[in-house]
């Protein structure tokens, strides 16, 4: 693949020093049916309850299988290790684990593997970033009190009742609980995780279709197919080498040069060329990711009836169609509700729910903003963090669109903040004075996950501190509903409250995108925009 010929250098002086780049396989392309894929350095230790970003999530998805698994295509939660999950009151669940499952070190997966893992994840002393996922389970307030020392090490709501059965008692009814169990934080853990934690962190051991063969932190991880994997979704390749890239553009270039097989995040700057560059080996799949503009509802100026009109006016001033087409080249689609198309209509997604308010209507936008008393402070400053993602581009585009619609060059300006932590601090300390970037990547494909954490009073991701009694009541009712259909209907009602109040301006649904080499077939992305590695075939 590389011309081994003489290297003629522009600056002749170095030509002599330049050893001929060895041809043949470098580190990037291992032989056999092992594929190489782009990866990012995980930001947290790779423990299941400590991983809250997609790069660590990729590995967990390969080496762990939980009670449920989200179907890579439909996103529907399906039993994986769970034989059955039974309840009569949506509050106490009896879970039976299928027989025959093992960790890759040979240890059988039992009810205890789950209970120990969940207790570890919930316990305050273990400082797990995703501990709040266990917040529904009874006794969470003892093992993870909001303040003061913890008074228990284990969740009182978890009881092992047999080799393969355990019961979970929640602190309140939650009918969708079984469907949340596909999330990585609920994965089972082997004894070794607790007895030799350091060794586990250096080379995590799980029960998924791959096992970690070698791991050089910060550089690469080689995951080998686990031949004795007992599950139905055995890997169809011999293994995956994950290579850490600090910039997806480099990974993309490496795919072009034939040094890498799979890049799962096509840089926006290359989208115009990608089909030509890769000869169609490019996929663009909807993912459970919605981008919105949130508002500081603690600021009285944004929390009035007039401000509601201003918010709807601003939403109408944004030309989502042109922005998604021009800047994102179809890797994002204009949002028309507050969930995501990956839920499917049955799951609660309602195309067009937002209606007129989410279509570009400059004249009406101008009128609404005027009726609402004008922009608070005479100008909106859209705050975003400058350190990750290319937020600047779309914020500038949104502002230009608003300025054009309102006929004022200074109606909207971007307000970059240097670091993500600073951005989060401004939210936490209520220092935002105007709309700010908000994005939501779903934890599990449920309408509940798109609404409750974001708009319920004082919920963990309710960054704008929006609060509405009707919405809260509907969510409570939905969670307590005995059957899924009722729950979804109630959540949809709650979503209409969000719409009427324009609690946040929905911008666009984000897709996952990937490009791959001609060695690969059956490449797909799941609704979390993570490649379905086990289905990829090589050759």
């Amino acid at each position, binding site marked *: 693949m590389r011309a081994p010929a003489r290297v003629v250098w522009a600056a002749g002086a170095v030509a002599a020093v330049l050893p001929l780049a060895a041809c043949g396989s470098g580190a990037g392309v291992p032989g056999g049916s092992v594929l190489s894929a782009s990866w990012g350095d995980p930001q947290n230790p790779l423990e299941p309850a400590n991983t809250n970003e997609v790069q660590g999530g990729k590995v967990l998805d390969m080496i762990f299988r939980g009670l449920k698994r989200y179907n890579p295509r439909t996103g529907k939660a399906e039993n994986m290790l769970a034989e059955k999950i039974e309840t009569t009151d949506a509050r106490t669940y009896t879970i039976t684990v299928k027989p025959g499952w093992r960790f890759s070190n040979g240890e059988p997966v039992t009810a205890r593997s789950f209970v120990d893992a969940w207790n570890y994840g919930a316990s305050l002393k273990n400082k797990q970033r995703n501990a709040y996922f266990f917040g529904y389970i009874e006794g969470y307030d003892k093992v993870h009190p909001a303040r003061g020392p913890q008074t228990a090490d284990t969740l009182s709501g978890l009881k092992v009742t047999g080799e393969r059965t355990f019961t979970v008692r929640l602190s309140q009814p939650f009918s969708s609980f079984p469907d949340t169990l596909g999330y990585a934080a609920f994965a089972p853990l082997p004894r070794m995780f607790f007895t030799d934690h350091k060794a586990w962190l250096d080379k995590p051991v799980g029960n998924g279709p791959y096992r970690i063969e070698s791991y050089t932190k910060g550089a690469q991880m080689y995951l080998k197919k686990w031949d004795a994997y007992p599950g139905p979704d055995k890997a169809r390749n011999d293994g995956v080498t994950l290579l850490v890239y600090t910039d997806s553009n480099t990974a993309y270039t490496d795919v072009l040069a034939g040094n890498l097989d799979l890049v799962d995040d096509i840089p926006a*700057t*290359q989208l115009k*060329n990608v089909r030509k560059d890769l000869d169609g080996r490019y996929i663009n799949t909807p993912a459970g990711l919605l981008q919105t503009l949130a508002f500081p509802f603690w600021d009285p100026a944004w929390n009035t009836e007039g401000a509601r009109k201003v918010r709807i006016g601003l939403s109408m001033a944004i030309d989502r169609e042109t922005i998604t087409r021009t*800047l994102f080249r179809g890797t994002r689609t204009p949002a028309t509700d507050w969930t995501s198309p990956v839920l499917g209509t049955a799951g609660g997604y309602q195309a067009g729910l937002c209606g007129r308010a989410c279509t570009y209507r400059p004249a009406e936008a101008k009128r609404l903003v005027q009726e609402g008393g004008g922009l608070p402070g005479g100008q909106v400053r859209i705050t975003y963090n400058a350190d990750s993602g290319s937020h600047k581009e779309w914020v500038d*585009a949104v502002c230009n669109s608003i300025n054009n619609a309102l006929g004022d060059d200074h109606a909207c300006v971007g307000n970059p903040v240097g670091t993500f932590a600073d951005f989060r601090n401004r939210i936490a300390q209520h220092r935002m004075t105007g709309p700010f970037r908000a994005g939501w990547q779903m934890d599990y494909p449920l309408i509940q996950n798109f609404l409750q954490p974001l708009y319920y009073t004082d919920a963990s991701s309710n960054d704008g501190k929006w609060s509405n009694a009707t919405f809260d009541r509907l969510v409570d009712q939905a969670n307590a509903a005995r059957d899924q259909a009722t729950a979804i209907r109630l959540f949809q009602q709650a979503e209409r409250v969000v719409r009427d109040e324009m609690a946040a301006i929905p911008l666009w649904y984000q897709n996952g995108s990937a490009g791959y080499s001609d060695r690969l077939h059956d490449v797909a992305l799941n609704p979390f925009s993570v490649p379905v590695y086990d289905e990829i075939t090589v050759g």
Partner: protein
Amino acid sequence: MPEPSLPQPQEPEGAIAGTGTGAAMDLAAAEAATVGAAEAGPPAGRPRSLWSDAWHDLRRNPVFVVSALVICFLVVIALWPSLIAPGNPLHCDLARAQDGPSPGHPFGYDGQGCDVYTRTVHGARASVTVGVCATAGVAVLGSVLGGLAGYVGGFWDALLSRITDVFFAVPVVLGGLVLLSVVTSSTVWPVVGFLVLLGWPQISRIARGAVVTAKQHDYVQAARALGASGPRILLRHIAPNAVAPVIVVATIALGTFIALEATLSYLGVGLKPPSVSWGIQISAASPYVRNAPHALLWPAGALAVTVLAFIMLGDAVRDALDPKLR
């Protein structure tokens, strides 16, 4: 670090054991032979100083005249951009993003659908101000501090050098995020101030090095022997001979400062939106160079012309200040 204030001109070669090579001896011999003949410094009663001599030369140097004219033009554009670009630099139409040139829009459109010509002309103000003011600040601060350190030597030299070491150590990104994120002013001055703070140590070390060399020269020793005062020696004899590397570094730094402003904007701490500058244009267009090179070409070209003008100007000034060229 006490350096001898008057190294003996009789034995210049063997300062550090083992370095008195043959060549050095040759040189020393050659120089010793010419001491006092050619370079005893200008006679005290001479009517025109070196500096006014230089000005006299410069006015007749075509390179100087042309570069000065270009700079004047840039200043005019920076002050009154609407003279040649009446459009509104803030008006952008995303539907035209990355489009090529069309009538009335000779440079085409950038990634946000803004007119590249209008923005390039209007960007001159911020960029030229940042480039020129930061360079001037760095050159003055750096050469004064570095020059004094090199001339005085000893404790003050050590102190200043170690301070520059600490300054060098602070990463640009960190300094920018810490110092500029607290600023709310939307003018260019915080950025200029930051670049000066960041850039002076380098010029300072260059100036120090130049002064350390220049003060060993025989004509300086001669002037000192003739009883010239410290400031007079520094200004009349050392400065003209030490200024060349400072000019070289400063003129190139001018270009890098204009580009660095964009880095700061990229970090979210540079010029506050909706500012227009070449740096911001260049950094926004860079990732799209494969598809829309024109959006990069024009602002980069404007930056190149500006740097060229100042490099030529610097060259001409340096030549004019070089007594050996007379």
